[in-house]
C-alpha cells in the first residue's frame, strides 16, 4: 500500500464567533505521518474532521491524491478513522467490526483480511469478543484494525489514546507508528499530548487559534521553535529576564544566541529549556535550591537566583547532593533560545 498526498488549502471554519480554522494550509507527503498538536480549541480536531468529511469548511479546498474531495460526503472519501471515544459497534464482535467496512465496499478482499488485521494489531484470539468484553486499549486496537482493513488512502487518528491509561498509551502509540511504517498509509494524527506527537510523527504541526504556528520535524520543533507559543507549548521552558545585546541575550550573566536574532538592545524574556540549565553545589553559589522532584531516571530541581525562579533537569543520582536550601551555581548551556 502506498500513501497519497493530502493538501488542505485555505480552510476556514467558524463556530459562531470562534474561528476554529483560520485560513489553514497543510500539505502532507505520500506516506507521511503528521501529528497536529495544540491546546484545546485550537482547531486541530476540526481540521481532521474537515479532511474526513464529517465537518464542512466555510471555504477552502481539500485535495487527496490530487483529487478535489471538498464536496464529497464522508462515506465517499476513502478514509479510515479512529476516534477518541470508543467507536466499535456494540452489537458486533471484534471480527465483525473489522469486516463491517469490507462488506460495505463489497471488496473481494482475501477471506482472512479481517483476521489478518486483528493479527496486525496483536489481537489474535479476540475475534469473537464483543466490545464490552474488551479493555479500552483492546477496543482501540480493534478500531485501528477496522480503519486499516478497508485499505484507506488516508488514516485519521483523532486523539485515539487519550482515554487510555499511561502505560497502554505508550505501548499503543509505538504500535501505531510501527504499523504505519509497515503499511505506509498517509496519516494525520491529532493530539494535545506533546510527548505523543514528538514520539510518533515524521513532522509535527503546532496549531494555535485555527492556524499552523509551525510545521517541522519533532527535533526542529523542540530545538528551534518558530515562536514563543511553540517553545512554551512543546516542552517545559523557564521564562528568564535578560537584555538583548549584539543579537544575543544576556541572562543570569550568560550570553545566549537567539533563534531569531534581534538587533534592538532592550530588556526581553528568554525561554530556556530545563535541560539547558546546569546546577552544581557550590559554597559561594548565587542560587539556593527551593524544591526537588524525583521523576525516575531524571529529576527536577527548582532554584532561586535573586528573585528569579529557575527549573533545571538533572540526573536523579545527583539529587542527594542538592538538598533544599543548599547554595548552588547555575550555568546555562549556549544553545539558541527563543524570546517570549
Amino acid at each position, binding site marked *: 500500500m502506498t500513501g497519497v498526498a493530502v493538501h488542505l488549502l485555505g480552510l476556514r471554519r467558524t463556530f459562531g464567533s470562534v474561528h476554529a480554522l483560520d485560513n489553514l494550509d497543510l500539505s502532507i507527503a505520500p506516506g507521511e505521518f503528521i501529528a497536529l498538536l495544540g491546546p484545546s480549541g485550537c482547531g486541530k480536531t476540526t481540521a481532521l474532521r474537515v479532511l474526513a468529511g464529517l465537518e464542512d469548511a466555510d471555504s477552502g479546498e481539500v485535495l487527496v491524491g490530487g483529487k478535489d474531495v471538498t464536496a464529497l460526503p464522508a462515506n465517499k472519501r476513502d478514509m*479510515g478513522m479512529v476516534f477518541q471515544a*470508543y467507536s466499535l459497534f456494540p452489537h458486533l464482535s471484534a471480527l465483525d467490526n473489522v469486516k463491517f467496512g469490507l462488506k460495505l465496499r463489497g471488496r473481494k478482499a482475501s477471506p482472512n483480511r479481517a483476521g489478518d488485521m486483528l493479527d496486525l494489531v496483536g489481537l489474535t484470539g479476540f475475534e469473537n469478543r*464483543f466490545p464490552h468484553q474488551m479493555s479500552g486499549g483492546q477496543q482501540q486496537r480493534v478500531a485501528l484494525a477496522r480503519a486499516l482493513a478497508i485499505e484507506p488512502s488516508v488514516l485519521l487518528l483523532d486523539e485515539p489514546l487519550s482515554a487510555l491509561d499511561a502505560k497502554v498509551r505508550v505501548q499503543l502509540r509505538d504500535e501505531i507508528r510501527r504499523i504505519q511504517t509497515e503499511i505506509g498509509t498517509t496519516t494525520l494524527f491529532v493530539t494535545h499530548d506533546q510527548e505523543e506527537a514528538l514520539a510518533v510523527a515524521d513532522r509535527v504541526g503546532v496549531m494555535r487559534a485555527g492556524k499552523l504556528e509551525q510545521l517541522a520535524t519533532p527535533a526542529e520543533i523542540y530545538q528551534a521553535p518558530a515562536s514563543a507559543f511553540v517553545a512554551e507549548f512543546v516542552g517545559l521552558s523557564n521564562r528568564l529576564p535578560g537584555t538583548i545585546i549584539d543579537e544575543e541575550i544576556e541572562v543570569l550573566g550568560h550570553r545566549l544566541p537567539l533563534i531569531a536574532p534581534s538587533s534592538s538592545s532592550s530588556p526581553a524574556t528568554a525561554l530556556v529549556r530545563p535541560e539547558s540549565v546546569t546546577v552544581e553545589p557550590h559554597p559561594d553559589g548565587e542560587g539556593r535550591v527551593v524544591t526537588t522532584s524525583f521523576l525516575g531516571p531524571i529529576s527536577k530541581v527548582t532554584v532561586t537566583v535573586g528573585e528569579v525562579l529557575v527549573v533545571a533537569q538533572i540526573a536523579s543520582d545527583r539529587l542527594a547532593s542538592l538538598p533544599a536550601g543548599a547554595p548552588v551555581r547555575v550555568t546555562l548551556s549556549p544553545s539558541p533560545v527563543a524570546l517570549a
Partner: protein
Amino acid sequence: MAGVIARRARKQRAFRWAVLIVLGVFFLLPLVAMVEFSTRDSNTWSLLIDWPQLSATYPDLSDGIVASLLQAALTAVLMLLLLVPTAVWVRLRLPRLRRLVEFLCLLPLTIPAIVLVVGLAPVYAWVNYFLGGSSVTLVFAYTILVLPYAYRAIDAGLSAIDVKTLAEAARSMGSGWATVMGRVVLPNIRSAVLSAAFLTVALVLGEYTIASLLNRTNLQVAIAFLGKSSATMSVAVSLTALLLAFVLLLLLSLFGERRSSRRRKESTS
C-alpha cells in the same frame, strides 16, 4: 437485641404481605368479577374463540377487533418511521433542539383526549375529504397520542449508546445514512424500539375517546356498543383486551430484564 431484630423483621414481613394482599385484591377483584360475570352465559367464551361465528353473530365487534389490530400495527410502524430517524437526526445534527423536540413529543400527555379531538375534528374533515372515513385513518391521531411514551423509550435507548461516534465511524467506512440507521443504530436500540412498539400497541388497543368522538370504529367503541346489547360478551372481550395488554407489558419487561442480565453476565465473564 436479637429478639428485637427478629420481632421487627416479622412485623416488616407482615406489613409487606398486608400491602401485597390489599393491592392484589384491589387489582384482581374487578378481574375476578369480570370472569364471573362473563361466564354466566356458557356460550360467551366459546363464541369468542370461534372467529367465523363471532363475526357472523357480532359483526360490529369483529370489525372493531380487526380495525384495532390494524390501527395498532400501522401506528407502531408510522411512529417508528417518524420518531427513530427524527430522534437520531436531532442527536446527530441538531442537539440544541433536543429539549424542544422532547417538549413537543410530551405535549399530547398534557392535553386531555377530549381537547385533542376538538383540535383534530377540523383536520379530520380534510382527512375524510382526501382519504375517506375509514377507521384506519385514526392512525394519524394515534401516532400523536403515543408520542410521549414512544419518545421516552427511544430516547432512553439512544442515550445508552454514543450515536454520534458510531454514526461517524460507519460513515467514515463508507456507509450511507440508510446503512447507518439499519445496520448500526437500529440493532443497538432494538429493545428500545420494541418497548416503543409494545407501548403503542397497548395504548391503541385501549383507546376509546378519540375513535368514539370522531365516529370511527375500533375495539373499545365496539365493546361500548356491544355493552348495550350483550353485556357478558362485552365484558369477556374487555377482559381479553386487558389480558392481551398485560401480556404485552409482561413481555416488554421480561425482554428488557433478559437483555440487561445478559449484558451483566457477559461483562463480568
